[in-house]
């Protein structure tokens, strides 16, 4: 296959032409383009799809895959596939179009999908196949069908067909679409039935409505008349009591008509005025009392002058008094603190120096630079001391370590010269595997030779030595074929002659039998008899003629003649008798002409058959002698071979087998020679290696030891020596490093000691101002400096406190002066009192004076208000009295006390007038439009008792008519609504539409259901048919393959019946234990699937055009044993069709090299 421009490839060739059909192992690491190559193969055969993704390097227009295809029959096809819409198959030179049918012819009807299913298997298929076996419970029919087609998802397809069909329809279901639609359909039909309105129903309702309407009009007329009459009588009946009451009221009114008519609120107004008068008088009294009380209170108040004017100054001194008191308290605490600090400073000084007082202490104060100098020297001292100590510790430790390294060096053994050995080992390491291969070859050759010997025996050539075999003059196939033809021809000829003889004999017999039959029926007259009879007649006639001519007649002749005629007494009698006889014969000849002719023909035939038989007998003799000659020649041909020949037909295959035997023998010889050469090379290498080893003091093991082990031994020795050398070098490096470290440490120690001496001098000068000696330690000097600093701090704080005490004393004096001058001005009686007391008393007096002042202001305001109140009360009394006087005048009374009487009279007259108006109003309402007087007159004319009877009668009639009208209204209502319901609605039409829509849906679903159902049925029939035809061979072959692939873990396979009687496949362990598929591991199920697939494929190949079988890395879940066994099985398969095995596992390549017959295995690599 040539990947000219496809996917990642540019002009890459994959050579799968070697190894016969061959097991082609194609190795490619991940991303090497393995999948692209696989796809290219498929696209080559079936075209590149329109939306191919393999154009990422080459554009669509230049995609090309080419190949040389060798069909089982016919010529090699060289072709190239390009991408496009038509004419995509081109000749090998890409120059012209190649008919697609050329390719189709050698694909044996296998289209792209079937090719993918049947001739390609990848790991996913295998896993899926295995899973299907377990989940499908090992159903034989399905497994056999799967095996024979490569279809992995058979069960899934079957289930989905059933499930989809079930979703559409189930005979007893309700939910499926079709069931549901059918139910809907009958529901619609029912509804349609109900929705359809029959014409006569409409007409009936229409009629009823018309009748009810006209009847209702009549009743309404009558009802109106009666209602009018009843209403008049009712009005008069209601008016009669009203008329009587009106008369009474009129009489009473006439009596009360003289009273003054006062306003309706007259009484209320009077009561109100009297109440207001009482209130005003009470107010007047209270105001006068209050005014007197206020005058007394104001005159009793005392308010001294002067204090209010100095109020601000008094308040200010009162505020300052607080802070004065606090300052006096603070002063005591400050004094205590100051004295304490001074005491502490004195103590400190005493601890440092006895000779100095606090007053002289300033002489001890140090400069800042002097302090820093002392501190810096202290730090330098610490560093130096530490370094000197370190140096003194490190030196002895280093000396000890150097001694240890020297000891280890002395302990190491001396190195040996291994250069030569290294060279030999580097030279070649393949000799180990080669030797193994040589040994295997030796064994194989022996086996092959035994095979040849056995075959030789089988050919009955046991006595012939192997060397002589080739020289045997065994005839060639062509020669044997000639003999076979000769024998066949001779036998044929003999058989033919036999047949002809039989035929001729039976024909002759037949002729004789028919002649006899004729004879037995009745003798057939012959021409000869007639001639004879006529001769006798004519003889007689001569005599008779003579008698008639009266010529003399010889008596003897007459007697002789008479003798011929028994019973004849005279010549005439005799002549007449013979005349009759001759005529009779002639007549019969004429009459039985057919029988005569038949007999003549039969006789002729009989004679002819006789001759034929003789001729045949002669020919047969010749043929037999030919056959004998051929047999003799045949035996002569085989004489020199020393084999007594069987028939040429049997000897053809014999000769073929013989030639094959010779070929094998030749091949064995070539292999033997190759093996001998290999052995020499191996031995040469062994002796070279042994020499080196002996040189290094190793024992010579002779040629018994395999080269591989020898090499291993040499390698171990070399490695030991190399380790030793590495160790010695490491130790030397350690020693040198430690010696250098020791020298460095010594030098550093000396420098530090010099440094310490210089420090001593500087230190003495620095601590002198502190009054310390040179041998004082830096820590002691620092402590003295810190004490001094603390002393000076305390003295500084005591000075600050003294200043604050002086300030407080000054403030107190100023405040006392201010207070005494204030008291002198506003309260001379307080002179001589202490400052505190004076301030507090002044403040109290000011407060009292302010209270009295505000009380006076309040009383003055209240007095004004009371005066106003008194004035208002007096005005009100005057107004009310005037109004009451006016009311008395209106009612015509002398005084207020007469007013209630007048009010009662007025009320009486007013009530009577209102009642009269009410009665008139009632009558006006009942009069129905006429005047009150006219209506009263009308009422007078009616007899009340008779009217009540008339009214009762009218009411009854009205009720009857009302009931009937209501009935008619109901009828009209219901009929109207019935007719309204029949409004030309399209409900029924819509239902008819729904029915049609439902039918439309049903139609589609029915077809779909039928498709699914028939598909499921056809599929299961095909499965069953294929099972019947192929179960035996496929299972038998799969059993063998399964046993091989599982390395004998299983002995084979068997069809058993499961609990429900279905045939299922089970595995059989050695010893006969049965393992159902559910009991197999995933891996084993995968292998079972593979065994079945391969068996199915082989079955296919028995009858059909072979196509290459593409295997894509199916062994990744197999252990090495099973993988090796599978590779062998695939190698076997490759003798029937090409097997192309893609893998990205390198170990599988080496596994195949070890396992598979090298004449079949071809390796190649892509992407490298």
């Amino acid at each position, binding site marked *: 296959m040539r990947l000219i421009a496809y996917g990642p490839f540019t002009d890459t060739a994959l050579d799968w032409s070697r190894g016969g059909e061959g097991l082609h192992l194609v190795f490619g690491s991940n991303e090497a383009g393995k999948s692209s190559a*696989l*796809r290219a193969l*498929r696209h080559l055969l079936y075209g590149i799809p329109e939306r191919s993704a393999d154009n990422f390097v080459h554009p669509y227009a230049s995609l090309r895959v080419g190949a040389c295809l060798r069909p089982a029959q016919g010529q090699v096809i060289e072709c190239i596939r390009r991408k496009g819409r038509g004419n995509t198959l081109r000749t090998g030179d890409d120059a012209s179009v190649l008919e*697609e049918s050329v390719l*189709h012819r050698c*694909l*044996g*009807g296998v*289209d792209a*999908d*079937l090719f*993918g*299913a*049947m001739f390609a298997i*990848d790991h996913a298929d295998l896993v899926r196949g295995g899973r299907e076996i377990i989940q499908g419970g090992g159903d034989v029919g399905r497994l056999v*069908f*799967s*095996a024979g*087609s490569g*279809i992995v998802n058979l069960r899934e397809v079957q289930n*989905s067909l059933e499930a989809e069909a079930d979703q559409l*329809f189930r*005979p007893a279901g309700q939910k499926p679409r079709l069931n549901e639609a*059918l139910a809907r359909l009958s529901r619609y039909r029912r509804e349609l039935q109900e929705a*359809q*309105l*029959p*014409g006569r129903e409409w007409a009936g309702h229409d009629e009823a409505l018309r009748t009810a309407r006209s009847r209702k009009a009549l009743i309404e007329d009558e009802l109106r008349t009666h209602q009018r009459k009843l209403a008049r009588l009712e009005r008069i009946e209601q008016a009669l009591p009203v008329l009587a009451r009106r008369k009474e009221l009129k009489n009473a009114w006439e009596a009360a008509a003289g009273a003054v008519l006062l306003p309706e609120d007259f009484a209320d107004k009077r009561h109100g005025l009297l109440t207001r008068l009482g209130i005003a008088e009470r107010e007047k009294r209270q105001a006068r009392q209050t005014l007197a009380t206020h005058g007394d209170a104001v005159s009793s108040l005392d308010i001294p002058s002067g204090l209010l004017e100095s109020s601000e100054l008094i308040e200010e001194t009162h505020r300052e008094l607080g802070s004065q008191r606090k300052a006096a308290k603070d002063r005591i605490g400050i004094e205590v603190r100051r004295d304490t600090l001074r005491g502490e400073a004195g103590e400190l000084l005493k601890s440092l120096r006895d000779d100095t007082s606090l007053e002289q202490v300033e002489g001890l104060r140090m400069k800042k630079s002097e302090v820093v100098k002392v501190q810096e020297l202290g730090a330098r001292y610490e560093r130096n001391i530490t370094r000197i100590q370190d140096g003194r510790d490190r030196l002895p430790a280093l000396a000890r370590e150097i001694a240890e390294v020297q000891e280890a060096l002395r302990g190491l053994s001396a190195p040996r010269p291994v250069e030569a050995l290294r060279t030999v080992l580097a030279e070649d390491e393949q000799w180990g595997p080669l030797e193994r291969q040589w040994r295997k070859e030796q064994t194989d050759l022996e086996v092959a030779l035994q095979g040849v010997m056995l075959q030789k025996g089988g050919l009955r050539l046991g006595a012939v030595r192997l060397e002589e075999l080739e020289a045997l003059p065994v005839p060639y196939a062509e020669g044997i074929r000639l003999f076979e033809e000769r024998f066949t021809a001779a036998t044929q000829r003999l058989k033919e002659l036999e047949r002809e003889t039989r035929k001729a004999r039976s024909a002759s017999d037949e002729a004789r039998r028919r002649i006899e039959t004729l004879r037995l029926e009745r003798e057939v007259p012959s021409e000869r008899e007639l001639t004879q009879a006529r001769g006798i007649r004519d003889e007689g006639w001569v005599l008779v003629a003579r008698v008639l001519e009266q010529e003399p007649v010889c008596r003897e002749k007459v007697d002789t003649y008479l003798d011929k005629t028994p019973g004849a007494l005279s010549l005439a009698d005799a002549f007449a008798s013979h005349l009759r006889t001759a005529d009779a014969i002639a007549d019969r000849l004429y009459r039985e002409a057919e029988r005569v002719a038949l007999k003549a023909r039969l006789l002729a035939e009989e004679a002819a058959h006789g001759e034929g038989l003789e001729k045949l007998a002669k020919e047969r003799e010749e043929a037999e002698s030919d056959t004998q000659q051929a047999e003799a020649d045949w035996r002569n041909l085989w004489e020199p071979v020393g084999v007594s020949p069987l028939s040429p037909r049997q000897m053809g295959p014999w000769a073929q087998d013989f030639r094959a035997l010779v070929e094998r023998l030749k091949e064995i010889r070539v292999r033997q020679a190759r093996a001998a050469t290999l052995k020499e090379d191996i031995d040469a290498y062994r002796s070279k290696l042994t020499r080196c080893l002996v040189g290094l003091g190793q024992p010579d093991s002779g040629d018994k030891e395999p080269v591989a082990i020898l090499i291993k031994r040499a390698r171990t020795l070399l490695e030991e020596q190399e380790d030793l050398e590495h160790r010695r070098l490491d130790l030397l490096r350690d020693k040198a490093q430690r010696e250098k470290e020791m020298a460095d440490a010594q030098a550093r120690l000396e420098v530090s000691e010099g440094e310490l001496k210089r420090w001593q001098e500087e230190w003495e000068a620095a601590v002198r101002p502190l009054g310390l000696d040179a041998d004082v330690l830096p820590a002691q000097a620092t402590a003295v400096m810190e004490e001094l600093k603390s002393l000076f701090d305390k003295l500084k704080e005591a000075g600050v406190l003294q200043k604050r005490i002086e300030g407080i004393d000054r403030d107190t004096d100023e405040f006392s002066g201010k207070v005494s001058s204030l008291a002198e001005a506003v309260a001379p009686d307080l002179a001589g009192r202490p400052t505190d007391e004076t301030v507090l008393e002044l403040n109290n007096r000011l407060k009292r004076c302010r209270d009295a002042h505000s009380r006076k202001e309040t009383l003055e305001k209240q007095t004004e208000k009371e005066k106003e109140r008194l004035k208002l009360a007096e005005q009100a009394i005057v107004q009310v009295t005037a109004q009451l006087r006016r009311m008395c005048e209106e009612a015509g009374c002398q005084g207020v006390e007469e007013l209630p009487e007048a009010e009662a009279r007025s009320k009486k007259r007013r009530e009577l007038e209102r009642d009269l108006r009410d009665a008139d109003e009632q009558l006006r309402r009942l009069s129905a439009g006429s005047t009150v007087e006219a209506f009263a007159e009308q009422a007078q004319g009616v007899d009340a008792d008779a009217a009540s009877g008339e009214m009762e009668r009218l009411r009854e009639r009205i009720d009857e008519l009302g009931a009937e009208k209501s009935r008619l209204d109901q009828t009209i209502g219901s009929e109207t609504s019935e007719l309204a319901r029949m*409004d*030309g*609605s*399209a409900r*029924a*039409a*819509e239902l*008819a*539409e729904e*029915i*049609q*829509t439902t039918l*439309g*849906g049903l*139609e589609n679903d*029915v*077809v779909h259901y*039928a*498709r699914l159902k*028939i*598909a499921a*049925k*056809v*599929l299961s*029939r*095909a499965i069953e*048919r*294929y099972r019947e035809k192929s179960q035996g061979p496929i299972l038998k072959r799969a059993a063998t393959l399964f046993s091989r692939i599982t390395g004998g873990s299983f002995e084979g396979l068997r069809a058993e019946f499961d609990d429900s009687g279905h045939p299922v496949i089970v595995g059989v362990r050695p010893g006969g234990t049965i393992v159902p598929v559910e009991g197999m591991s995933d891996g084993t199920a995968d292998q079972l699937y593979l065994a079945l697939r391969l068996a*199915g494929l082989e079955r*296919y190949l028995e009858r*059909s055009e072979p196509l290459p079988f*593409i295997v894509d890395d199916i062994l990744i879940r197999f252990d090495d044993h099973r993988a090796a066994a599978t590779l062998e099985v695939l190698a076997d398969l490759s003798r029937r069709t090409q097997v192309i095995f893609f893998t990205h596992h390198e170990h599988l390549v080496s596994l195949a090299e070890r396992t598979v017959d090298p004449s079949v295995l071809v390796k190649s690599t892509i992407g490298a």
Partner: protein
Amino acid sequence: MFTFLHAADIHLDSPFHKLDRYEGAPVAEFRQATRRAFENLVRLAIAEKVAFVIIAGDLYDGDWKDYNTGLYLVSRMGALRDAGIPVFVAAGNHDAASAITKTLRFPENVTLFPAHHPATFLVEKVGAALHGQSFATPAEKRDLSRGYPPAVPGRCNIGVLHTCASGREGHEPYAPCSLEVLRNKGYDYWALGHVHQREVLQEDPPVVFSGNTQGRHAKETGAKGCYLVSVDDHGRIGVQFRSLDVVRWATARVDAGGAESGYEVVERFIRHLEELVVESDGLPLAVRVEVKGETLACDEILSDVDRWTNEIRSAAVESGGGGVWVEKIAFRLRMPVGDRFPHVPGGAVGELLHLLDELDADPGSRVELGAELADLEKKLPRELKTGPEALRLEDEHWLGDLLAQVRPLLVRRLLRKGDAL
């Protein structure tokens, strides 16, 4: 100068045949189409202020029993009465069979020609004489035209007749008549009904089938309506077709030849549909789809007819602007000759294909296979079992057609592995 309308074959409330409802189908647009078309007739008559309206038979379906249909008709006739337009009706075979006809009372503007003899009615206002006769029985086999009276002199003579004329395919042979006889009556216009495809049998004087007012199934394609006939002062007749239908039927014949994939076929359908939509005057369309030709997509489509039916339906929903209802889809596809494999392969798949071939060749075994469908067959409504498109689940030919779809369905489902090897 006056005008009148000539219509026939209203078939009020007769439903559309077997429209399968699906998501996106314009259900509302198709509802009560015959009523709406009749409504259009009434509106046209009023708008054109015609002198009268002629209906040459078949107001409703013969087996339709709902009196509401009659009431609706009466209400519409009432609208014409209010506009002062008389209506002349000759009952046809369906009307004669209808129970509605027997009880319905038309308003006074409607005149029904008598059934047992021909009659002449005059429209004095415009000087027209209308001659006609109704069917007395549904199967009227006599030539009624022979009994029609001679033309009334000085009037515009119009013959109204429900007839199959000299016979028309798909129509019952009722009241046959010959053009010769019609011509000899000397009428100015013959208004014929019964044949649903409109046709002008003769130009002068016009002899016209108006066709029905609304197509109701896939065979009644194209615009449907009535004729607006004008008569000028010299008695010259002008004829003009006016469409009344609210929904139109069409057939989309999609050539799938050479298509590479199912989607390409759908694309071609869309292009074809777009033309049909343009031709449909903006009316909702019911489309019967026939996909034909030799294509590589054959297997892809036939292996999943259900799916591709839905693809075509949704394409129609999308590109038909919501106004297209795909009635039915027939796939008549073959693989291109060059891509057909010449042999049946070996192995199990070969066995399956052999079995399919055998079934193809042996009607007997097909019928036996049909027994699988017996349960369903028993339950199928009679509408689906009769007529030219009947589902004959036990018929060898029907099953043969089905098997042609079963083959790719099975092969595809079993062998489809994608592009991987």
